[in-house]
């Protein structure tokens, strides 16, 4: 496998954002929410609200995911969209460390927005895979991303667990301070390790995938540039994706250009 700067940037974004999935989503937030933000309130009510907010956000995100993706494709702005959602994630995760005890409503809101930032950036992250490596490197590159995500988030999480178990070693007052510090560390970690992916974020990705995948199935792999020019007019409407879906589900008779 060739090691390009762009590829390592991509791999390190997994290293960056997996910290959120491990430390915040799987590790500390659910436990800490019950123990700290939820004090002085009927626990069943706020837990129900957390569950409800989580489900609503998941459903909303799931329905919007292909639409957001299609918009990024149409504008050729996959990387920029990645960073828009990542920004949301950084800010909201960092914000969690400022939420006062008992303020469960604010904690839920910040958490949900952070999860949307995380999940949203993941769509565009996955979609960039095709642009950073050649066809025979797809498996290895995808696996490297995943592997480094495991390693990075494991290291940070191990460090955070140590902080919570022994706050004194790190000069922290108590376990609560350690958990808050962990949220801040995740936000900074996510931000810092995203930076290698940042070069070129303001440029539209006007690269033809056929450069990296020469033997691609011909009719499907239209040059991105031509497509951008062709769809330039529909960019503003945002509704261009509706008729196109009909073709995907097997409507044989409709000419492709008609559905654009």
């Amino acid at each position: 496998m060739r090691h390009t700067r762009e590829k390592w940037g991509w791999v390190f974004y997994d290293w960056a954002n997996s910290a959120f999935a491990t430390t915040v989503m799987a590790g500390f937030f659910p436990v800490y929410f019950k123990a700290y933000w939820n004090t002085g309130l009927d626990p069943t009510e706020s837990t129900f609200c957390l569950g409800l907010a989580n489900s609503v956000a998941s459903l909303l995100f799931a329905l919007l995911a292909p639409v957001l993706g299609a918009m990024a494709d149409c504008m050729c702005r996959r990387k920029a969209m990645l960073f828009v959602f990542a920004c949301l994630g950084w800010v909201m995760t960092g914000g969690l460390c400022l939420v006062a005890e008992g303020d469960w409503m604010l904690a839920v809101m910040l958490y949900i927005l952070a999860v949307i930032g995380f999940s949203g950036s993941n769509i565009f992250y996955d979609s960039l895979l095709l642009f950073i490596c050649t066809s025979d490197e797809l498996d290895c590159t995808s696996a490297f991303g995943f592997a480094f995500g495991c390693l990075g988030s494991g290291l940070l999480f191990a460090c955070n667990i140590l902080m919570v178990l022994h706050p004194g070693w790190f000069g922290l007052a108590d376990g609560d301070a350690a958990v808050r510090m962990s949220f801040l560390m995740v936000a900074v970690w996510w931000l810092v390790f995203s930076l290698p992916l940042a070069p070129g974020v303001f440029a539209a990705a006007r690269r033809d995938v056929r450069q990296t995948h020469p033997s691609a199935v011909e009719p499907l792999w239209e040059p991105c540039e031509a497509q951008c020019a062709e769809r330039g007019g529909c960019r503003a409407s945002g509704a261009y994706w509706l008729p196109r879906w009909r073709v995907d589900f097997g409507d044989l008779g409709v000419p492709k250009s008609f559905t654009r």
Partner: protein
Amino acid sequence: MATWVSQNLSRGSGTLVWHNLHEVRQLRNVWLFLIAYWLYIDGVDTVVRMAVDYGLSLGFDHKSLLMALLITQFTGFPAAIAFGYQGTRFGPRAGILIGLMIYLVVTVRASVMTSPGEFFLLAFAIGLAQGGIQALSRSLCARMIPGNRTAEFFGFYNMLGKFAAVIGPVMMGWVGALSASPRTGILSLQFLFVAGALVLLKVEVGRCRV
């Protein structure tokens, strides 16, 4: 409308029909893959989510569960890389099927689990398989989707990831309640892995190789 007419005239309708047929056939494969992915990723996520419940019911404290989570993370690192190289040699589908087989063994082992030490062993096995399945599913999906609509199709892909762990927990509870044993409930997850593998075998991977 005017552009449509002019484009059709310039391209020639014969090419256009061929274009559409080809695209629909190609996309049929993508949808088939997404169905397979949804089935097995549901099982994978259910195992992860129920593992904590299961561990707690066996009398583990939170510290041991965090340990198990860390074991999964750190075995995931070399395992995913190994799966990546394996995928380059034998194709991503073979790798996914190996991962699913590991999951079949895990569910059987979990259903007859008696000693707490085995829980860590299962965490290790899950660490082995999980990274490989997810990494190779992503690269297989990348091979099949139209290159100018990558974010749209990865949107669908991520959507299914969000809807994962929906059938699994329900099935576990239902089968567990019918047979009055949570151990049979875990075994019912094998349906998801087997069904996912069968649908995956239907995908014409050879046609999608870029």
